[in-house]
């Protein structure tokens, strides 16, 4: 097929960057909170007051960052272990198959399916068969890699395809378990950080799907 250049690449790129930034912010929120400085840096340079406008999740996070103290970060570290990391019964595992499989197990069907999807893109989880491939952060990282590929493309057809793939990945892999995950987190924690994070995650992913669909439609016209 002949290459058809995409003329609005310059306008598309800022959107892709904004989306990528947002995904990276989500990666930050759901990573083990090891380093206090990251929190401080984000508070100071992250225009936190704008989070206020982003629904309940944004508001909670805004309040969290407003009243940030070392004590609070320490408590959130403990909360992270309790909710996501262990040791011990973890309240809200970060793996899709926990929410999608009948027995709430890891390494279940959805783990395979997402693995297959990564493989089709020439990617493989560095810990394949050692940790499950359907971890929230890994799925987000995969989204980021699709966004990156999209930024590098100039061909209209390819861009269109990559947008479609993002939509597909969101609807088939990333989004299906997020409502259950969100409920589980909310039920199990009083943490502003993690309640806020999961609400924001849910809202943003839903939003991002809309964005993708609209862009794709616009481009097709």
């Amino acid at each position, binding site marked *: 097929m002949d290459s058809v250049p995409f003329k609005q690449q310059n306008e598309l790129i800022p959107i892709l960057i904004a989306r990528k930034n947002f995904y990276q912010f989500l990666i930050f929120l759901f990573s083990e909170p090891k380093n206090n400085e990251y929190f401080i840096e984000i508070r100071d340079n992250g225009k936190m007051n704008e989070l206020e406008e982003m629904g309940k999740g944004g508001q909670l996070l805004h309040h969290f960052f407003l009243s940030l103290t070392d004590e609070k970060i320490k408590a959130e570290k403990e909360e992270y272990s309790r909710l996501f990391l262990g040791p011990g019964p973890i309240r809200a595992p970060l793996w899709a198959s926990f929410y999608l499989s009948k027995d709430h197990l*890891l390494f279940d069907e959805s783990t395979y399916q997402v693995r297959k999807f*990564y493989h089709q893109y020439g990617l493989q989880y560095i810990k394949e068969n050692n940790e499950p491939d359907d971890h929230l952060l890994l799925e987000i990282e995969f989204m980021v890699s699709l966004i990156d590929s999209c930024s590098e493309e100039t061909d209209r057809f390819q861009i269109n395809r990559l947008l479609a793939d993002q939509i597909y990945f969101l609807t088939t892999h990333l989004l299906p378990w997020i409502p259950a995950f969100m409920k589980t987190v909310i039920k199990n924690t009083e943490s502003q950080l993690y309640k806020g994070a999961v609400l924001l995650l849910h809202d943003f992913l839903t939003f991002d799907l809309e964005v993708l669909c609209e862009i794709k439609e*616009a481009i097709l016209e």
Partner: protein
Amino acid sequence: MKENNPITDFLKNKMLRRTFLKWSGAIGVPVVLGGIGVKQFIEYKEAHTTVSKKDIPEKIISTCSVNNCGGRCVIKAHVKDGVVVRVSTDTQEGDDLSTPPLRACVRGRNYRKMLYHPDRLKYPMKRVGKRGEGKFERITWEEAVDTIAKEVKRIGETYGPESRYDNYASGQCWGLHGGSAAVRKLLSLTGGFLNYRNDYSSGAANVATPYTYGTNNSGSSFDSLLYSKYIILWGQNPSEMIFSTPYREYLMKAKLNGAKIVVIDPRYTDTVVAFADEWIPILPTTDNALMDAMGYVIVTEKLHDQAFLDKYCIGFDEAHMPKGIDKKESVKSYLLGDKDGIAKTPEWAERICHVPADKIREIARNYATMKPAALIQGWGPQRHAFGEQFARGGAHLACLTGNVGKLGCWAAGTGYWNRANIVSPFSYENPVKASIPCFLWTKAVEMGTEMTSADGLEGTDKLKSSIKLIFNMAGNMLINQHADINKTRKLLEDESKVEFIVVSDLFMTPSAKYADILLPGTTFFERWDIGVPWCFGDYVVFGEKTIKPLYECRDEYDVFAEVAGKLGVKDKYLENGSTILDLVKESVKRTKKELDPTFPSFEEFRKKGVHHFTFNEPLIGFKKQIDDIEKNPFETPSGKIELFSKALWDLHQQEDIPAIAKYIPAWEGPSDPLKEKYPLQLIGWHYKRRCHSTYDNQEWLEEAAKQEMWLNPQDAKARGISNGDRVQVFNDRGSLVIDVRVTERIIPGVAAIPQGAWYSPNESGIDQRGSLNVLTSQRPTVLAKANPQQTNLVEVKKV
């Protein structure tokens, strides 16, 4: 670019203005965001050969769980693309009992769920809160290994090797290797450690039976039961605790062959349901009263085997007493009440044990006349204040009736037997000779230096230190399975007593909570091994490593090799093999060479998954001695069966350590005055949904059989309790809450809670899960210093 292009307009003006993107587009990437999260993808090399999952062939790998259930069965893992997708078990038919099918029990149906359970311990951790609080932080393996090496060294240097201890643990104990073996090897190479003796299973019997028979190997192989006419299972429940995977097949066959099977148990167990012609309910701790009365009936009705007693035994009657001992000390005199004036009649026993006198007569007569008869003793009943008497009393009955050493008989007592072994190449030699009874480890923590031979201390007169370092490898004896949890808890929380605790396990057990360093271990799916049954069973099962260890889980063998490296003893540590696979191969090779030339090669064994040892005839306990006692005396001081033990007599403790088996009323038994305050006897049992405490956190098994207490309708009614109520069970040692099942399947006066539930205290320290050991006592049995965990008085009330 034309400004009025609708796409441009849409992208630039509409999209970017939306809240989310407006913000994230404008923040730029703060340096930190870019730095968070390491890149976790690599290039997928086989990108173009991708086959769909449907086409990936399923591989079936035969492996074996090595937990502490008496069974050992074949687990078949169906593996696809490196993931276990399904688990099945032995499919072989059961016609040929010389190669019985080795099928998994209900617990095995959960193995895949255990493997992929989200709560698996995944990374090494160090404690950050107070000990026992459950707060941990993830660390690297390097830090874990370093810390362990430093503490092993520091504590060894500060307090001496006797301060280092590897606690009793059985979560992975029926294979060739495991955490305990690794730890012991390491400690042996760096000065040694305090030993323990005996076990929590048959602790009282293990010490008592040899006084009678000279050995604990008083059992016969299961195939001998096919010739029995009458079988008594005294407090044994193989339907739930399995005991040995093929055992139940033999019992069923024995029944089909016409044997009458009687089960004596406070509970109407699943074993009663499956096998028994008759259930004899009895009060816990009173078994010896029933035994005495059976003896009385047998002797007074002249059903005893006088010739057998004359020829093989010491102490039955006046004519066969050791020199210098009063004739009135004989078994017969005791039964008739010559000395104490109490004839041990069925009526006497009925008042104590609540078995009707006529029923006692009937089973005594049946046992003495329906020969060959097998009296098989479970170990639950000997886990009581005077459990030693239970083991010896059963042996008395077997001897009175001459049911020893002949086909279809069974000599009672501890009942071990074994004729199929493999070589275990992993060995260590502990330079420390001091040892304590395993049940007294908390005493050795609390006041080790004050222990004496009266506490069962051996190998030294005095310990140089109390226990300061504990390794707890795949075990829950650190708190959950040891008696008196609340007492143990205080001891462990005091960080000045035990200074350092290392735990390795699969899940966050109650014991793991007390770790200072917590290590994620591997399941049997993730390592090589050979599984052996609890001594009983003529087979071994191959344990193939099915998948690579998940997360950062590691085999203890490898972990302690690294610790050994830090301490400069790695070469020695690895002398039996540098990997676990080496150990397995070496075992196969040496077994074939040293023990059994028909043993398969490694590859054959791996392919077959199991090896059955075959024998031409049953193993009959003491056949050798009975056939020719001149040539083959018993291993007792006199060379005969010592119904009367001079060695015990010489201890001068006739009241609680009599020279012949006697009924001794237990503290916290049915005649203890404490009954006023705590009127119910409480016992535990091995539950089918758990193997001891293993799998308690597995939800699916809880659905299969939930944690609940059994209580007789009479006792329930007296307390206004209905079926399904939540009740509190308590005594001076502790308190728990549990749902109650009101059922006729338990004798009145007794409550029963399945043992092994994970201690889960609420803020006021009341256990919420039904963890039996908050109510049990650390007071040991008199002779063996063994665990008396079935001896408890409690009260129950509705909450």
